[in-house]
């Protein structure tokens, strides 16, 4: 009974945080790409455009949802549902931190600690192909069909190097449960943490790079986003979708991005373990960063540029100092600090995704497919063989 209450509570919290984060990742993306391109990005709707996602949601909900008469209605309506469903399921096996004890009941920081957690993530990402293939086909439009088929072929081609890149750190971790994989990466020698990319017999740096490249292709992000680019094939498989159905595909893409960043953090970057050891003061990294952000806000609030900066920036400064104080409470430290490190690493990987989107051009489709089968797949195989050989040699 307690288990059910705890799980429902965790489900509500994770769902709320995830859906809000999806909207705000889009805000971060627009701001970062804008600053890379030396322009401002959304800045009108709220302070620094922070209410822009809200405006977008209102626009998408109130837009007229067109149901074209020539589509196959059942599959046209089912495709975005399927895409979002699969994208959100994979969050349920991702652990965010250590355990938390509320009122005597101890619960782990994840929805379900499945002992084949890695396989669940692979399974759900395999099933995500259906949403896109059906969306492309049901639109009864030759451009959508080609875009949908290309996107599905790309996703299943890159699943192979991704699975092989995932298999390599499992050899040293010895388990398929995501929590046990992270627990195998605790500790450090002197200043280098025991993360999988620095592991002793076989540093998993190549697996990490292969996984990130395959992740870009799995989530249809630049440089692999030919099937859904705006100026290719008239936006590919989602050209016939409008308002909320289009928003559903977009939400599915960002949720997939979050999932692969979380999986990369858990498998390769040590999950919630800190970058340098605790005895060298890594518990003070979180309050230090928040205090720094608060100081910047208050400084810019005092030397304000726009009239309402007098109010909003010091308010943000106070909020940041409050968060810094939260990380200094002794009871909260073992619970909040792992979550901070996990979210910091995931945010860094999301920033890398957005950075690459702003920087690189996109591959042509045949270059993309030959890169998967002729280069990435053999490299992933060789990497797995070398890792296995080194692990067997040492143990």
């Amino acid at each position, binding site marked *: 009974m307690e288990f059910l209450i705890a799980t429902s509570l965790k489900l509500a919290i994770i769902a709320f945080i995830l859906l809000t984060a999806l909207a705000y990742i889009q805000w971060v993306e627009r701001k970062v790409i804008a600053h890379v391109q030396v322009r401002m990005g959304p800045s009108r709707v709220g302070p620094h455009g922070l209410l822009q996602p809200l405006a977008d949601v209102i626009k998408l909900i109130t837009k007229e949802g067109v149901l074209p008469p020539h589509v196959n209605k059942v599959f046209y309506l089912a495709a975005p549902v399927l895409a979002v469903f699969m994208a959100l399921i994979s969050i349920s096996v991702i652990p965010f931190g250590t355990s938390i004890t509320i009122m005597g009941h101890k619960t782990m920081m994840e929805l379900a600690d499945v002992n084949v957690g890695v396989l669940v993530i692979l399974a759900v990402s*395999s099933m995500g192909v259906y949403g896109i293939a059906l969306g492309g086909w049901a639109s009864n439009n030759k451009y959508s069909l080609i875009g949908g088929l290309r996107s599905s072929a790309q996703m299943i081609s890159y699943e192979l190097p991704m699975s092989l890149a995932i298999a390599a750190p499992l050899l040293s971790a010895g388990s398929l449960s995501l929590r046990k994989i992270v627990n195998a990466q605790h500790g450090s020698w002197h200043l280098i943490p025991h993360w999988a990319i620095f592991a002793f017999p076989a540093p998993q740096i190549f697996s990490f790079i292969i996984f990130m490249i395959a992740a870009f292709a799995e989530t249809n992000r630049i440089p692999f986003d030919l099937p859904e680019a705006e100026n290719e094939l008239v936006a590919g498989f989602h050209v016939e979708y409008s308002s909320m159905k289009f928003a559903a595909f977009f939400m599915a893409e960002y949720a997939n991005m979050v999932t692969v960043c979380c999986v990369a953090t858990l498998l390769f970057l040590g999950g919630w373990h800190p970058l340098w050891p605790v005895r060298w003061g890594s518990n003070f990294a979180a309050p230090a960063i928040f205090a720094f952000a608060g100081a910047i806000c208050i400084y810019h609030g005092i030397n304000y540029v726009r009239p309402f900066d007098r109010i909003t920036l010091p308010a943000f400064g106070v909020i940041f100092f409050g968060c810094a104080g939260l990380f200094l409470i002794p009871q909260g430290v073992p619970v909040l600090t792992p979550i901070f490190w996990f979210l910091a690493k995931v945010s860094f990987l999301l920033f890398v995704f957005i950075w690459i989107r702003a920087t690189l051009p996109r591959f042509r489709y045949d270059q993309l497919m030959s890169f998967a089968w002729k280069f990435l797949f053999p490299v992933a195989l060789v990497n797995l063989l070398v890792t296995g050989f080194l692990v067997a040699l040492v143990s």
Partner: protein
Amino acid sequence: MVDLLFFGLFAAVAVLCAINVVVQKHPISSALSLVGVMASLAVLYLLLGAPFIAMAQIIVYAGAVMVLFVFVIMLLNAGIEVRRGRSWMATIFGIPALLGLLGVLACLLVRWFPDAPIVKFGDFPGGSPRDFGYALFTQYLLPFEVTSVLILIAILGAVVLARKELD
């Protein structure tokens, strides 16, 4: 009790989706119903203590083989199947006979084994990936290697068959 509930739910879903595979006119509806059958069978494998096989079913069968089927249906633009020469006699007598046969088969199976052991979730811990991999790479190593040659032959066959003719 919860076992019974899950079994009842997913067995019903599996049978309904299987009937849908056979009954639907458009091949894509049949393909998606088959995916539904495979997903509910994966849950039943989990109940039977086979987590690795359940995930392999979804990754390999539902996530790769059925995607291939869906691709081919989309590429060939397969339409609704036109039934010609349909005999009403076969339908009126055939479908009840089939359902009767199924019912008799199921009842016989249940009646012949009245005290079959009860399957509880968690009573077979030997289906984990570790035990599976251990058996696969020690006792069943030869079939494993032969299977990899089989897959290679299948890849060669598929590539040769689906190639464009060089004129």
